[in-house]
């Protein structure tokens, strides 16, 4: 499954870059992510909790910065969910572009594969949540980088 799109941020590319290559700061902008822990310069781990009707599941992941050459970033993520013990692997490629010094575009492409029983429901959940997650991520990045300060570090939704 592939998810792609773009985010516009009213801040210079180097500031956006500094934030997105810092896993702890970036993950604080992604709803649902908790227990983020940096393991080394390129690796971090964390957890996402999702509930679907009566089923609550935790997804524990491990993430590696595979490529970090401004303006391109590639992150590989693998994890296992607590309900079906299925394996999810994802590669996210992000790239920054700036048309003027105070505006940055962030284009992303996520390629996700789910193995095991999680595939029965996982894709539906990913698609359902992706739009709101990206919207929240955008709001949070804009709030942090566009200087208003509103929403910095906040992951509680609207």
């Amino acid at each position, binding site marked *: 499954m592939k998810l792609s799109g773009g985010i516009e941020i009213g801040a210079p590319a180097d500031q956006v870059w500094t934030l997105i290559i810092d896993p702890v700061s970036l993950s604080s902008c992604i709803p*649902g992510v908790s227990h983020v822990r940096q393991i080394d310069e390129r690796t971090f781990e964390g957890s996402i909790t999702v509930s679907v009707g009566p089923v609550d599941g935790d997804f524990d992941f491990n993430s590696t910065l595979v490529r970090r050459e401004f303006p391109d970033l590639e992150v590989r993520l693998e994890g296992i969910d607590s309900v079906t013990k299925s394996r999810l692997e994802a590669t996210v490629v992000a790239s920054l572009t700036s048309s003027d010094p105070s505006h940055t575009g962030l284009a992303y492409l996520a390629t996700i594969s789910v193995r095991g029983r999680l595939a029965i429901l996982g894709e539906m959940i990913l698609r*359902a*949540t992706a739009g709101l997650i990206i919207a929240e991520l955008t709001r949070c990045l804009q709030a942090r980088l566009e200087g208003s300060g509103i929403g910095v570090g906040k992951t509680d939704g609207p």
Partner: protein
Amino acid sequence: MSIEGAFDLIVVGGGTAGCVVAARASEDPALRVLLVEAGPDPRPIPDIVADPKRQSELILKSPYVRMYDVAREDGSTFPLLSGRIMGGGSSINNLAVVRPMRRDFDAWTQFGGPVWSYDALLPLMRAIETDRDFGDSPIHGSAGPLQLHRSFKLDDPADPPVRALIEAALALGLPACPDLNVPEPYGICASPYNVENGRRQSTAVAYLDPARDRPNLTILSDTTAMRLVVNGTRVDGVELARATGPVVVRSASVVLAAGVFHSPQLLMLSGIGPSDELARHRIPVRHHLPGVGTNYQDHAVVYVTFQGTTDLREDYVIPKVRLIAKSDDTMDHPDLHVFMRPSIRMRGLPPMLPVSIHLLEHRSRGNVALQSANPTDLPVVDPALLSHPRDVRALVGGIAVASRLAAHPALAAFYGALLTPGSPDAWEEHVRTSYITYYHGVGTCRIGPAQDPGAVVDSGLRVHGMDNLWVADASVLPVIPHANTNLAAILVGEVAAQAIARA
């Protein structure tokens, strides 16, 4: 458990239809019947299977579900599922009891003749069921093995979102449909389920359990049929793989009830099928039957998600109501099931409310092929869902139906904006790249007359060109019904039992 000597009938596959055939055939004490099931036959039935409230767990965690990965046109994959346990699909499915529509019988009649018409099969449909709500009516039964009831009637008090859905549907001109097992159901319908005293009524429970003590019925679970022993136009027996090793069991007749994926696989492994496909796997051709494995049909499903204004916890497995709707108002019959689904919740986000849209037609045809000549390898399935543009359009039409409903003032207290897919421009792409299935595969050993090159079985379900071999499961249905398929598979089992008794 003795499998010495010859049987009169071996039923391969103790799934939905196989349990029906074994139970009906063994009513004749003179017939020695063997039922062979690849999966286990756990007794007592574990709670995770029997308790409908544990359905999500059953599907997501239990060892009784088999997955067949298939690809969409864009290369992304999703799984088809089947049950691998006594009762087959009926032991793991979502328990909905839905009859094919009259038009489905009309379609089957084109292939199987008048014995497959609605009127010819109505007595059997009545004999299958004990409908606790409508049993005393000319179209329903009150003394059959399959117990069913609607846990909710349309005018019962209900949670506010369910009431609001009913109100919105009625306001949009959809009729109230208290019984969706009428010949032409349409509208906002109360959903019937095969649940009795909180326990699943699989065919292992409804049909097999009352027959288990018969001395003429032998049941072998955890036993996989590897191939048939074919001798000219006859099958002499079945080669079985048991924990203790391989064994050949002889029988006067054999019924394949291994389901839409495995009945064609077993035929091909035994040399009965398209000669080119058999040659590809160096399987000696016993009988060239080109239709085996072709004609696969299923129901495509898409999920759309609305922003929730509340945390809707409507039951995922047993939704109280379903919409039987038209994807296009100009159609003369409904082609969709639409369900409201429980919320998805994630910290930091408002609740998201999915709605699932199920297309009840399939214009293109897929197929089931062999992965190898090894019986333990799963077959390869190409469901070819949504390869016909009208099927895509119908699901796009379904998104419009769901959006109209969600936007109705009665539902505004629960459903906000459509989040996924957002704007109508994105709907077709969403349909093409995210569809899954209703798990209703049929058609890979379809009924038809001998001169029809795609036909595998005759109208009495006997394999063309073979004297003593039948197929009895959802694979024989030539056209997918506008309904969930478990009841159709039960009906096929009943028809097969009668046909074999007459043979």
